[in-house]
């Protein structure tokens, strides 16, 4: 099996993507953070560092809660997606 990029992995998953964003980040706090634990905590790699800024995309979220407890700056406002939305495992 050839290595698979995280984007390709998430692409096989089934999601019902909500237009409402369920996780919001406080960019002003992220600007002052140098640890960027979120980059390593998120198994779906939803957080990216681009030109010194944290970019977050919620669509691939696996709702594991890792980022919520890893961010020690309180920059992540984490709630669950609305019922029926988000990841929908077919195997699990």
């Amino acid at each position, binding site marked *: 099996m050839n290595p698979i990029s995280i984007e390709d992995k998430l692409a096989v998953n089934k999601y019902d993507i909500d237009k409402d964003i369920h996780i919001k980040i406080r960019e002003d706090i992220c600007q002052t953070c140098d640890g960027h634990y979120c980059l390593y905590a998120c*198994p779906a790699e939803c957080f990216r560092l681009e030109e010194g800024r944290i970019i977050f995309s919620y669509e691939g979220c696996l709702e*594991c809660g890792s980022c919520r407890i890893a961010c020690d700056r309180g920059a992540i406002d984490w709630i669950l997606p609305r019922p029926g939305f988000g990841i929908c495992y077919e195997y*699990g």
Partner: protein
Amino acid sequence: MELDAIIVGAGPAGCACGYKLAQAGLEVMVVERGKFAGAKNMWGGAFYGPALSELLPSLWEEAPVERYVACQRLSLLTDENCLSIEFTTPRFSQLPYNGFTLLRSKFDRWLAAKTEEAGAIVATGFEVDDLLWDGNRVAGVKSGSDELPASVVVACDGVNSILAQKAGLRGELKPSEVKQGVKEVIAFPRETVEQCFGLTGDEGVAWEFVGTCTRGLPGGGFIYTNKESLSVGIVVQLNALIEQGIKANDLLEDFKSHPTVAKLLDGGKLAEYSAHLIPVLGIDMMPRLYTDGLLVAGDAAAFVIGTGLILEGANFAVASGVAAAEAVARAKKKGDFSAKSLACYQELLEQSFVLKDLKTFRQAHRFLENPRIYGTYPKLVCDFAEKLFTSNGQPKKRAWQLLREAMKGKVSLWRIARDLMQGKGAV
């Protein structure tokens, strides 16, 4: 009519609790935020012990399980080498099975359907935002602007249990208290799974790996065989990932490319990528288990044991759900759902394997912090095995001498003895 109990979360704990309460004739509702039960759930792969078959005697005829665990294997990995021990016994192939693999999306859906059949209301796509309070007593749950009163709430809402937190039974989770599990389900034709692993019929393998697959971080790899797929994953301490700046998915890709693993995955097709947190400090992170009008069960109560050799949680979830049901049924008889009345929940757990095992393995997580388990020791035994089994035309040495050579520069006998002593009291 007011409900006797609202159970939040239709996983193994919530369904077991709902099933038992419905059987006892109580008015019970199980609510689940996923579109269906299991939609948000993932795990490594195997259920051990009789807790489920005791709850549901028809388990083996009806449940969508994958394979029974006929072979238990543990491997130590270096970058290229692998030393394995394997245990098989005909006993594991006889009913009731000691362990079996299953996929949560299918299984939890079945379990929820059984719970419904028993007489519980199962509401999926149902969000609980908060607890409903009556003074200091939990009096139900809130969903948006709706209030749903009940005599008692059972929080089976998983490792991130927001309800246990809102009830003030525990604080915020910390990265040092959890491992992160990531998994790929890789699809194969059924015959390929059986040929590759030497399996017949519904036999299956539960295989744990320790060593370079986590680059020295506390954790390990796993492979579980399903009917037509493999569950391949990595479990690793979350604080170690963020402190070392390593991504779990990179570890998973490393693991999949290890020569021992890679050849098994040839020709497979990725079917799903999933992730979840596992509470790993056992009794040292256990919340208070009850308060006025509320009980906590399953992962929400951190009922998991992971010793490196044993990794169990779902059976604890089922047993704690059953104990919670018993406590609620007793409270209903007395017409008293106060903390004092619900305290029998803790006593029931103390009498069962749930709290007994958690106490027995209380020290396990401290022992498992030892980095030598993930680096030095797998390297040592693989180096030793390589020296022992390599025939290169040179005069041979005795095993003890080879072992001392493999130890050289890595670890002293004294250190090994100390680590073994620590392990003796822990796992």
